[in-house]
């Protein structure tokens, strides 16, 4: 049997948009009048899906709608989604900061949250006093804190400053101290939101390591909300992807991250980009991705030849410049760059067109973006077009076709294998 520690049933949360004013008062009175007569809240029926970018007709939106999930003991659940997808609202409900409009959450353990670090930190008090205060706010007793005080101070790495008021701390030190307190909390369920966005690399690594210890070694359950896919990937055993207040994906972390990345930016690929005709003397005019027949395309097979057609305007000063591009994949990993001297090809001003051939059977099946740079090396940028082309290499039978979802690198190289045993 699964050991379910947390269960969310039909969680929904409605928010009223706009400002609190006389309109709110009339709605309150109306709601109260319905309540007296034993009727349902009239405003629960209205409300729209929460999409930040579209204009709605109603003053009410559903920040969360019909959220159902279960978390097992010892599981690290990642919650990902765009800004405004409802992640933080969900965590707020989980940590009892606000109540859901409908539905219920049942829990078998204490939940402590780390929604934003430094909660209740008082600048006037010393680090030590703040450890006690913060710990108590998070639900520890004084005795518990005293027994862990040394460990907390050591983990935070702020030993030197521990008796200095926190207002003298750098923001990084404050975060370290706050995370240290929370890391030594002993709730059965720990809720973490975006803490790792701050702090230096060394501390982030430490924090992730600590969270892994918490979930693996001590069997603690963690709910982790982040935009940092690397952190989600290394920590979470299961992932929920949210969109407009609903759960759109639930399951394996790797698949969840792919889902997130795809839905985020790669809604459509762009095979051709035409720059605005500018008054600049030197600039990109147009860029396109073409196949062997010079047709613009955005999807290429693994074994296909890919070419980039670059059309530029060359002014006088740009004659000593370079044109180059950089290819990055969906996880923002840079795969390769290419750069040429313009003077190798032309020696006078005017328009010029280049064709760049990208060798086939090297780029691994992936979603890719290209950034173009037109520059005088180490002196000036003439033109810069970030992520202006995007395309996909489709799996058409590489050696790794049998392992879908596995990350086997950005490029596939035909390595030579030899048998030495004979």
């Amino acid at each position, binding site marked *: 049997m699964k050991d379910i520690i947390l269960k969310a049933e039909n969680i929904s949360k409605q928010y009223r948009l706009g400002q*609190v004013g006389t309109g709110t*008062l009339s709605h309150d009175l109306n709601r109260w009048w319905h309540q007296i007569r034993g009727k349902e809240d009239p405003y629960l029926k209205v409300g729209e899906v929460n999409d930040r970018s579209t204009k709605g007709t109603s003053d009410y939106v559903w920040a969360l709608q019909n959220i159902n999930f279960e978390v097992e003991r010892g599981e690290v659940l990642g919650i990902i989604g765009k800004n405004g997808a409802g992640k933080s609202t969900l965590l707020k409900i989980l940590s*009892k*900061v606000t109540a859901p409009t409908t539905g219920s959450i049942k*829990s078998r353990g204490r939940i402590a949250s780390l*929604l934003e670090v430094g909660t209740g930190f008082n600048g006037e*008090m010393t680090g030590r006093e703040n450890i006690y205060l913060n710990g108590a706010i998070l639900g520890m007793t*004084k005795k518990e804190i005293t027994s862990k005080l040394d460990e907390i101070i050591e983990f935070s790495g702020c030993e030197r400053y521990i008796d200095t008021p926190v207002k003298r701390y750098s923001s990084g030190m404050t975060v370290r101290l706050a995370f240290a307190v929370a890391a030594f909390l002993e709730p059965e369920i720990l809720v973490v939101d975006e803490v790792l966005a701050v702090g230096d690399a060394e501390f982030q690594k430490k924090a992730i390591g600590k969270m892994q210890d918490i979930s693996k070694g001590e069997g603690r359950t963690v709910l982790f909300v982040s935009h940092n896919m690397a952190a989600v990937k290394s920590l979470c055993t299961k992932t929920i992807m949210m969109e407009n207040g609903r759960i759109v994906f639930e399951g394996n972390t790797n698949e969840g991250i792919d889902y997130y990345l795809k839905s985020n930016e790669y809604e459509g690929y762009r095979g051709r980009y035409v720059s605005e005709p500018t008054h600049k003397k030197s600039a990109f005019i147009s860029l396109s991705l073409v196949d062997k027949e010079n047709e613009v395309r955005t999807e290429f097979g693994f074994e296909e030849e890919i070419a980039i057609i670059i059309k530029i305007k060359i002014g006088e000063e740009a004659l000593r410049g370079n044109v180059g591009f950089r290819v990055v994949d969906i996880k923002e990993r840079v795969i390769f760059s290419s750069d040429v001297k313009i003077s190798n090809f032309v020696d006078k001003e005017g328009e010029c067109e280049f064709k760049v051939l990208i060798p086939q059977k090297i780029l691994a099946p992936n979603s890719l973006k290209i950034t173009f740079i037109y520059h005088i090396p180490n002196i000036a940028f003439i033109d810069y077009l970030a992520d202006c082309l995007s395309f996909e290499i489709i799996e058409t039978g590489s050696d790794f076709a049998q392992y879908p979802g596995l990350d086997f690198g950005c490029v596939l190289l035909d390595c030579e294998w030899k048998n030495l045993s004979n």
Partner: protein
Amino acid sequence: MFCKKRLFAFSIFFCTGKILLIVEVKVKKALQENSFKMNNVNDNKDWLFEITPKNKFFSLNFKEIWQYRDLLFLFVKRDVITVYKQTVLGPLWYLIQPLFTSVTFTIIFNNVAGINTGTVPPFLFNLAGITVWNYFTACLTGTSDTFKANASIFGKVYFPRIITPLSVVISNLLKFGIQFIIFITFYILYCFKGASLALSPLVLFFPVLIAVMGVLGLGLGMLISSMVTKYRDFSYLVTFGIQLLMYLSAVMYPMELIKNKIPAFGWLVEYNPLAYIIETSRYMLLNVGEISILGLSYTLIVTIAIFFIGLLIFNRTEKSFIDTV
């Protein structure tokens, strides 16, 4: 023959074995079902807590508050520590305010307006009233913006919200204590100067009176803080209302006086529970005025009523105030 027998025995053995096996499977199944059922039962019973949209009508979790007692203590400590930080005069501010107010009141109400305080020096009379009154206002103003002032903490972390107003009431006791020491100092000073002062034996009940005052301030503060979350109008009402309320609470005059001088408005003071507390505390400390059992019982009932109404509304608000604050 032997072979047949053996076979027979074997087949019996085999059969029983099979039966045993079947029985075992059945038992296992039953057990499984049972455990499944039990698990279902567990599903409903075993939960530590449940987060739902609405509170029950009155749900104050005393056990939870007790668990967070260290937090209460730390909040009080924080208030005490941080209040004098970066001030030159520090706790002296606590002394300056009541002293200057008493002096002003003495000049205006006793010297100019000619209110008679009997055998008690007017300054001491006013100081007693102001000290007690100050505790009430500190509690009320401190608690009445609980939700607004702590929105940033409340928005991130859960703990029983009532801890915050409780800590305000307790840490203000300290402030009251300092101001009360001033009162005692002046009391002794006036005694040496030969004023005829006497404590009432009822002074033993003075702490109870102060507790009632604190509870009243807490109840009213919780009530107002809940309403401030949505409609800020109430916070203006508090600053303005407290000023007016002081004139209705017999702070700078004996209760008797208003009844005699303006009987038409005397009921305003008579129905004000605060007036009874201040009048009684002056009776206890200075042995002036009167003590009214009826008035005190009325005060007690009103205090308890306000406290529970405040608690009720506070509890209802704490669940989702963060959406409206």
